[in-house]
């Protein structure tokens, strides 16, 4: 499923990033790429608070929709 | 005489202030403002 369908507290491994190359590369530099662990901490004001490699990020729904997790 | 001395001092200060202002105006900034776009960087700024 996509990250946007996950519930807060869900921990998963990223299966695929489906965005354009530039965005993929950017996410990659944050450690957000295939095979990496991702935790969904909370969903606040339409944004997804995620944990990747010990850092917290807020991403919008559009971005959560391009991250496929298991 | 005092008028001339005070006048010279005062206009000296004004001239200096004007010079300082001109410097920073050239850099797209105000004296004392944080941040500016300096001349040599303008090309990069303009992007």
């Amino acid at each position, binding site marked *: 499923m996509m990250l946007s369908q996950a519930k807060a507290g869900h921990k998963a491994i990223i299966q695929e990033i489906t965005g354009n190359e530039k965005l993929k590369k950017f996410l990659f530099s944050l450690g957000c790429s295939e095979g990496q662990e991702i935790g969904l901490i909370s969903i606040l004001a339409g944004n997804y608070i995620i944990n990747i490699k010990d850092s917290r*990020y807020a991403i919008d729904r559009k*971005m959560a929709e391009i991250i496929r997790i298991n | 005489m005092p008028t001339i001395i005070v006048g010279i001092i005062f206009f000296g200060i004004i001239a200096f202030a004007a010079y300082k202002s001109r410097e920073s105006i050239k850099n797209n900034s105000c004296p004392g*403002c944080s941040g500016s776009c300096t001349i040599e960087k303008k090309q990069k700024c303009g992007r």
Partner: protein
Amino acid sequence: MKIALAGNPNSGKTTLFNAITGKTEYVGNWPGVTVEKKEAFLKTKYQISKSKVRIVDLPGAYSIAPYTGEEAITRDFVTGEKPDVIINIIDANSLERSLFFTTQLLELEIPVVIALNKQDVLKRHGDVIDSVRLGALLNCKVVETVANKGKGVRRLIEDAIEAASMKSIHTSPDLDFSIVSDEDNARQKFTGMIAQECHVSNRDTNDISLSDRLDRIVAHKWLGLPIFFLVMWAVYAFSIEGLGGFLSEYLNETVFGEIVPNAANAFFEGIDVNPLLQSLIVDGAIGGVGAVIGFLPLIMVLFFCLGLLEDSGYMSRVAVVMDRFFKKIGLSGKSIIPMIVGSGCAIPGVMATRTIEDINEKRMTTILTPFVPCGAKIPIIALFSAVFFPNASWVGPSMYLLAIVMIALGGLLLKKIFVWENTSIFLIELPEYKIPSVRHAITQMLKHAKGFIIKASTIILVMNTLVWFMQAYGWNLRPVTIQDASILASFGGIISPLLIPLGFVGWQLAAAILTGFVAKENVVATFAVLLAVASEDALYLPGGVLSGIFNPVTGYAFLAFNLFTPPCFAAIGAMNSELGSKKWLFRAIGFQLGVGYMVAMLISQIGSIIVYGETAIGFGYSIVVLVSIVFLVIRLIRKSDSNVKQVLTEAREGGI
């Protein structure tokens, strides 16, 4: 020797830069605070040899391959200008992510020294990083630092200078291509391996921390916005009407209202100076500059509060809260960062739009950022609220609120006129909350205070002297007996008819508005100079001389006019370089003029009807203006609509 500071956003580069150079560059814990490289010389305290060491602070980057404009600056500098050594600052709390950029830096054939920063936070988390092992694995020096407390900084500098003089080039990290073929993946495997070897952690970062709990309240769907308003209301009420206002009142009324001018007058009379020169100095220079400097305490209190707020980590949450609303007007949470920076000064605010990739969003943010009341507009707000609303605490905060409302409405209107699709995707790092550092807040406060004094004693002093001359002399270059015959009056007279629909009458207003375009503080200073002739009383007194020109409603409208019309020329210059085209600059200025004019007109006319039950001066004209502006806007929207349709049809036909 040239030392470059490079690292991820919010790893502490600028904090380190300030610590080793003694500068007070703007530090903030959200990305985009540093959008340009900054250079300074190393403090003598850290100097080892006689040769001067230049330190270059670079914008934060996650990777050498740039994603946004400011990241490109970092790449261009390290690959183009070849510093002698790079200090790579790593936030020890996100080691693995940071190493991605580190390994790229290690391949540049420039010596690299790593500063493993934020050790205090690492310890608090109970984590351990074996820095010796890390250094051995990466084949470079690693120094543990706490940049904001100066810990480890001396050793870091010594190691960096040594590495530079030895020109110790690293063997590039040994990326393993046996399992994966592409470079990025090999790099990721490598960093993962290193992190696993050096980093001992007993906590699961997926656990809900105190920060997360706070986020759930602060960035809550419904509570987020009211909390933000409440916080800003408190900050502005406290600085403009509370403590800041109280201190400014004393400085304005007593020090610059009585003590200084009286002493100056007595001095000049004592040594028998020409009365005209005396008037120029006392009424023009001291009166005008004093009226501005009087607001210094207020500026200091405001920036102290904003400094505390920034340092706590709250501002990135504001971006999260606003994202949803900003999306509706074609912007995103990213646009909030330039606006927050813009509450200090519009120039760095406008420059911070560089962090926005989407060109349309960047343009709109550039146009809307100057709406935020910057430090220079604060004296105007404080002056008018003291004179016309002496016992109200809502005037200052209401200006901030009005700015937010106008940003929203302005954004909607811009979206209607220049239709665009928002392609930008929003991501922001959320640093952990922390108890704000008072030292940071004091540094910010002093920096702004210094800037304010410098500005008052240069550009405002010059403008005031000019204003004094223009109001004292006629076109025949002889002193005039009444101000109305002066050069300034004739200049103001050209513009003043345009202000009648706004209920503003008098060339003095037009003159103040004109000087305000040079620097907004000049509005206050110009009134001080012009009205010094009319009354001995300080400008600041409740119901003072300004009441001769305004009533509370038109006074409030005048405030709004100054808030929303184009900012000072320096900010316009910054807008010009960020927008990158004259066409967009004219559109921006036109839009801002239109918004400022309309808001002031509506407040003035509608306010007069509600408050006084009668129309303000120029009511008839205002109807004419209103109708023509509405007509113009509708035409612009129609035009852009048909353009969009045309593009769509062409695309469809082309598709077939």
